[in-house]
């Protein structure tokens, strides 16, 4: 059963890596700015999940904190980019 679990962790990491490749291609190709912001959102969430599964594979709890920080700062980055696209400025005077 443990081998199946190990193989499924590998499979999920492969899926996330392919999703990150897709997001990078979409970020380079996207016709408008909001497409690129959406691709960046996908990219950081998939990176966070890959890092979390590295923590599962090596049974370390330090990767969890790194994944938490990636989620926090990625949300800040995406929200500020989207607010910039929406209003033209990030923080209102």
């Amino acid at each position, binding site marked *: 059963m443990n081998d199946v679990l190990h193989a499924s962790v590998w499979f999920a*990491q492969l899926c996330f890596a392919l999703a990150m490749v897709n997001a990078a291609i979409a970020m380079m190709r996207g016709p408008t700015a909001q497409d690129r912001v959406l691709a960046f959102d996908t990219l950081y969430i998939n990176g966070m999940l890959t890092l979390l599964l590295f923590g599962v594979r090596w049974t370390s709890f330090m990767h969890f904190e790194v994944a938490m920080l990636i989620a926090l700062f990625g949300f800040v980055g995406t929200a500020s980019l989207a*607010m910039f696209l929406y209003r033209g400025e990030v923080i209102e005077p």
Partner: protein
Amino acid sequence: MIPQIPVWAALPATVLLIIGGLLTLVGSIGLLRLPNFFMRIHSVSMGNTLGVGCVLVASMLISSAVTEALVIHELLITLFVVFTAPITAIVLMQAAIRRARPPRL
């Protein structure tokens, strides 16, 4: 390596990991193949939120079975992603709607 863990945790974790990986992959393939921005943001936000939920529940199961205690601090990331992904999606969609409209004079 993951140490030997009992079947009641390994079987649901395997299923959840496979489902989460496939959902995230399908969502980001939709990012490349769908024709419209609103279709793309739909596929990506749905797939990512559900995939993150599945993978984090699987991680919680594996951590609890490895340490033989209840480990629920992955719930923090789950709640955070579930709360913030719709906010990002709503602001991006409003920005896209505003940018698609011609400017008012």
